[in-house]
């Protein structure tokens, strides 16, 4: 089940170089590259906040903030 | 009165060690090589006694790297080597010039090129000290002809390294390094010691490691302290970050050269003997200067108007001083144990380069007063 409502994606399009690593390895296919070749969150509601995109982003351009996780902490 | 404990009968290399400790040396990295090894050996014993650190690295490149690292954490640092090892140090030496890291490199010269003549005297690394590392830069190199002066210039080497934030080279030679003679160690406070100039910029305020103050000095901040900045061998801005903007490159290179070349007269150390009325001036340094002084003394006793200008600062070359001291000379004889390195600078300095002659020896034997006398007689047209 997606965690959509409690998750925010913070994307820095200036830092993103559009390598597509995040898009490819996202298990829920939440991300795509936009027309300028930069990452775009297109199905936020499906995001399970696994953060695999953030962890593997070579550009430090995407951050996944999961409010639920923070509350649980 | 001199304290008896302060009188030593030691090698020149040990005089260098004593001078370094007096100046506050607390980190040394080195790799053994004749004829400088005694500096490394003695410091392995002496430094830990003062709480300082000694490390024998895997080679001379690593030794140079280690002292630069330790200088950045706020230490007075030194390495010692000879010919082949000095060659290996050149890349990191240039790094220290570029990144403006205070450090002292002692090169006890032996015969070269290559492995050359390890246990014999030479003064063949003068130009290497100046231009051994690639690219435009300025450098400070000091030398001395007796142990009291070795001590003094070693202290001065540390002082200049701190004052100008730069590597300083001590150019001894095998004869000085290995010869034994008396040294009186000055009392603390007798010779000035320049401490590391640290920034007063408080925490949270932008600290610029490469922004000169009005007096052109650059206060440092120790690695590990509150200011985090970058150090690089690339051309860099005042924060230490890589920058190849033409104006930045131009400005930095001028700064690196000017801070030393513009202070040439402040950095210049020399000694003079009987120059007031000298018609013949011997310009010399290191162990060659001993023979020069000996000969001049001997000739003076026979009425000849001859004197000696002994250079202790070789780089930046004290051009003005040499010109002034040689102005009234009929002939200037540069006495050095190489194929003619300092003579090029002397010819550049004096008004009449045609009156400058070379008395040299390059066979691993100490140049003798007789060797110099031979040249003198030829100049005088007396035949040998």
């Amino acid at each position, binding site marked *: 089940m997606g965690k959509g409502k409690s998750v925010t994606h913070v994307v*820095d399009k*200036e*830092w*993103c*170089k*559009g*390598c*597509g*690593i995040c898009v490819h*390895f996202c298990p829920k296919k939440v991300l795509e590259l936009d027309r300028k070749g930069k990452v775009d969150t297109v199905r936020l509601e499906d995001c399970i906040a696994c953060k695999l995109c*953030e*962890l*593997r*982003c*070579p*550009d*430090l351009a995407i*951050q996944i903030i999961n409010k639920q996780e923070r509350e649980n*902490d | 009165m001199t304290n008896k404990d302060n009188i030593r009968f030691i090698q020149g290399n040990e005089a260098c060690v004593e001078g370094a400790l007096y100046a506050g040396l*607390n*980190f040394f990295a080195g790799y053994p090589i004749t004829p400088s090894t005694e500096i490394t050996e003695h410091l392995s*014993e002496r430094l*830990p*006694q003062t*709480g300082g*650190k000694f*490390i024998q*690295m*895997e*080679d001379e*490149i*690593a*030794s140079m*790297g*280690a002292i*630069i*690292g*330790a*200088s*950045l*954490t*706020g*230490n007075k*640092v030194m390495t010692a080597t000879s010919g082949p090892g000095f060659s290996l140090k050149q*890349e*990191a030496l240039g*790094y220290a010039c570029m990144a403006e890291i205070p450090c002292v490199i002692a090169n006890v010269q032996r015969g070269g090129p290559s492995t050359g003549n390890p246990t014999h005297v030479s003064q063949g690394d003068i130009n290497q000290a100046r231009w051994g590392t690639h690219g435009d830069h300025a450098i400070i190199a000091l030398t001395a002809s007796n142990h009291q002066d070795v001590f003094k210039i070693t202290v001065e080497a540390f002082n200049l390294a701190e004052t100008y934030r730069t590597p300083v080279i001590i150019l001894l030679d095998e004869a000085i390094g290995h010869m034994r003679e008396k040294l009186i160690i000055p009392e603390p406070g007798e010779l000035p010691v320049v401490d590391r100039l640290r920034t007063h910029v408080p925490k949270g305020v932008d600290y610029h490691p490469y922004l000169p103050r009005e007096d052109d000095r650059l206060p440092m901040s120790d*690695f*590990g*302290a*509150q200011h*985090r*900045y*970058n*150090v*690089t*061998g*690339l051309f860099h801005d005042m924060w230490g*970050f*890589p920058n190849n903007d033409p104006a930045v490159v131009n400005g930095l290179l001028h700064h690196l050269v000017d801070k030393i070349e513009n202070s040439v007269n402040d950095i210049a150390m020399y000694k003079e003997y009987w120059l007031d009325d000298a018609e013949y001036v011997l310009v010399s340094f290191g162990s060659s200067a001993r023979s020069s002084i000996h000969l001049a003394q001997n000739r003076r006793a026979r009425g000849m108007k001859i004197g000696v200008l002994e250079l202790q600062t070789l780089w930046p070359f004290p051009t003005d001083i040499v010109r002034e001291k040689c102005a009234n000379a009929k002939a200037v004889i540069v006495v050095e144990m190489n194929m003619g390195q300092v003579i090029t600078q002397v010819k550049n300095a004096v008004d009449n380069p045609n009156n400058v002659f070379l008395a040299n020896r390059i066979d691993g034997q100490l140049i003798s007063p007789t060797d110099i006398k031979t040249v003198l007689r030829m100049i005088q047209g007396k035949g040998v």
Partner: protein
Amino acid sequence: MNDTPFNFKDYVRSRFFPHMWCPGCGHGIVLGSLLRGIHELGLNKNEIVMTSGIGCSSRISGYVDFHSLHTIHGRALSFATGVKLSRPHLKAIVPMGDGDALAIGGNHFIHAARRNIDITAIVMNNKIYGMTGGQFSPLSGPGKKATTAPYSTIDNEFDIVELAKSAGATFVARSTVFHAVEAKDLLKKAIMHKGFSVVEILSQCPTYYGRKNKEGDAVQMMEGFKNNTVKIGSKKLEKNPNLIQRGIFVEDTDKPEYCEAYDHIIETAMKGNS
């Protein structure tokens, strides 16, 4: 440990971003894992000195908000040795390229390991000289294409883990940028280990290695790290012994650390002196 949420902007010098690495270069993932690890350890930024040499990988030191020392090609470990021995309380981290660490810097690498000085060496292994445009490295191995091997390489490669082990490193581990969490955890252990620690992280250079050797783009190269590596001792090795193993190969806490050993020398010398 650190309970505050991780934000890499607390650890990088943002004004230099976007960084200089090519799209898809694995080096940025190493940077991410390292910063996350440092955050989780709760280390004080003033106590970290990041020393690097020259190479694409070595540029990492300019991006981090620690004390940073960007030195000369291959010699970073010797500079770091001076930093560490002179101020043993500082954490010395040395990110290196495969060429930087093991070609020009090979001697410093084995000697730092032999001394067991408390430095963390991170080898960002992309099996190529990235910065100079794709020449083969001592990690390329035979049968590879590079700008200096147009007919393919005949040079054998080092095994970094075996080399570090036999040189005396007391913590030796390997991971890949595909396994970014594992890499982070290994880096944390390496940083906290007292002694010389080596973490090899396989990283992709899509621009030169990938293109020259037809290994595809960054994504395909990372798929390769997933498919061609296994945890140490995995059963999969029985079928395919060529798989590259990941994990901790050495963790020895008995050997004296160099700076501590030197403190004993100082004690002895000072006694003799008084």
